[in-house]
């Protein structure tokens, strides 16, 4: 039996993939996204509304959705930091309140593994009960960390809602979506000299499958979502057909965004020095999730912009 699902951030790259997958699985999908004219898959109704505004609430009031997938949080900046904070926090709050007020049964919050923060003395594999580290050194992530913890607090504030917070590792695939794709965009990719941290990647299609699985299984709690075992950054860059430019961290901070190198947030340099690897066992136990694409396929799909058909085949 299909669910009526609201997807926020539905016009985004990953959002549109999730919508397509849900439609294919027989669900009714209502996308909420103020962005116009982008990536709207067939069969998805997109309502151009900001989740903080009245129009969005009206969707909940009149359409009575069963479930929500919340993907409308922002990592880096097309908008000012203040505005981003409002989107990430006020938006998340508004959404949970609507879910509570209009009887939504489950909500999946899409978070990021960067929540845990990179630090020299942090454990290699982070578990969901590990607190975030080194937030002060990566202030650009602070509102996302707060949004993640705020979403988790819904577990006790609104216990009637099946809330799941998914902290997903770097995604990679033909859509070239996300932070890692941005970092690997150009022909030259910077590394911090003398460091080669492990990176954990998951294919876009596997992420979509994991998100939909979390929805269908109505899991509660906080989960790390991972794919194949991690690989060193240098191997990742080389396999993507890019050239490694290794610079001392201090210099890297100054030259980022110039000389053909990607623009990086100041705090992001630490993520090129220390790994943030997450332990995804709990999610696998709760949902039976298995990734379908290994790192080789994901990197090739990213590098060539092709690779798989949608929706994601399951192993």
């Amino acid at each position: 039996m299909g669910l009526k699902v609201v997807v926020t951030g539905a016009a985004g790259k990953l959002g549109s993939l999730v919508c397509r997958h849900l439609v294919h699985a027989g669900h009714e999908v209502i996308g909420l996204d103020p962005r116009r004219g982008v990536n709207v898959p067939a069969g998805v109704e997109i309502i151009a509304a900001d989740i903080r505004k009245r129009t969005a609430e009206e969707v909940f009031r009149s359409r009575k959705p069963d479930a929500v997938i919340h993907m409308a949080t922002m990592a880096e900046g097309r908008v000012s930091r203040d505005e981003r904070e409002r989107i990430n926090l006020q938006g998340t709050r508004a959404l949970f309140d609507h879910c509570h007020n209009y009887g939504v049964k489950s909500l999946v919050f899409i978070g990021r593994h960067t929540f845990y923060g990179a630090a020299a003395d942090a454990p290699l594999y982070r578990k969901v009960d590990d607190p975030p580290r080194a937030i002060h050194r990566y202030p650009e992530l602070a509102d996302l960390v707060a949004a993640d913890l705020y979403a988790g607090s819904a577990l006790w504030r609104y216990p009637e809602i099946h809330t799941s917070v998914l902290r997903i590792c770097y995604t990679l695939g033909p859509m070239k979506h996300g932070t890692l794709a941005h970092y690997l965009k150009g022909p030259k990719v910077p590394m911090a000299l003398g460091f080669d941290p492990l990176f954990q990647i998951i294919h876009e299609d596997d992420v979509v499958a994991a998100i939909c699985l979390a929805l269908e299984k109505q899991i509660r709690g906080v989960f790390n979502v991972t794919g194949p075992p991690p690989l060193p950054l240098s191997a990742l860059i080389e396999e993507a057909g890019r050239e490694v430019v290794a610079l001392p961290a201090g210099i890297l901070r100054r030259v980022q965004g110039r000389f053909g190198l990607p623009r990086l947030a100041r705090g992001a340099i630490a993520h090129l020095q220390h790994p943030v690897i997450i332990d995804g066992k709990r999610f696998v136990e709760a949902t039976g999730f298995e990734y379908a694409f290994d790192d080789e396929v994901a990197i090739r799909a990213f590098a060539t912009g092709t690779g798989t058909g949608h929706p994601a085949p399951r192993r």
Partner: protein
Amino acid sequence: MENKILTDDELLERIDAIGIPFGRHGYDPYGVDRRELLKNFKRLNWMTQNYFKLRTHGTHNIPAKGRGMLVGNHSGGFGLDGGMVIASAFFDLNPPRLAQGMADKFIGNMPFMSALSNGLGQFTGLPEHAERLLEEDRLLMVFPEGHKGTAKLYKERDTLVNFGSGFLRLALQHKAPIIPFTFVGGGEAVPTVMNLYKLGKAMGVPYVPITPWIVALPLPVRMELIFSEPMYFDGNGNEPDEVIEGWVQQVKERIAGLLRQGRAVREGHLHPEEIRWD
């Protein structure tokens, strides 16, 4: 330790015999690097055969498989002791094993050093890492004296400083045998006359050891490494501090006894066959 220089192929065969689940790129899920291991064991092979005069005793006391915790003394200078234990577990045991130490936290911030130590399976010293390695039935190497142990001066070389107790609780919680060992000769190899703590702080390390010839390059001296019988304690790791402390003292006394024997063996007063393992 057998007297032989191994070829790259022989070394790789031994590395693969450890049973580390290397992936497509030659890294395990923790970043242990097959190629880096090869380079390192080549270096250790040469050093233990041509430079240092290392003798190992009691390697039969190290479990051939399954989890275990090698617990021993630091003997001054820097991590020479750890390197020799790693060499012994790899070259003396059949099949070989990888001794995985817990590196001091400052290493994680040092370029090259952090990548190298991680590639060799020497992770930052955190309980989380120790627990994971034990649960995966790997061989852990622990120096309960911490960096206060490596900072021993020449005159303090065969003494023991205060032992932490975290290792013992971990061993109990994860039902791992403790294999006490001693390393003798590190103090002679790197006879530290003083440690420069302020210079160390400026360089991001705990201290800089100074030898009579200034830099801490080790001398090619005789070194003894003795592993004793495994110790088991009947507990679950939730015992009160004074109980744990008593057991830590038992381990410490065992190591102190080994240390005396090691010294005697090194100076020729004791025949290696007369070493007591308990």
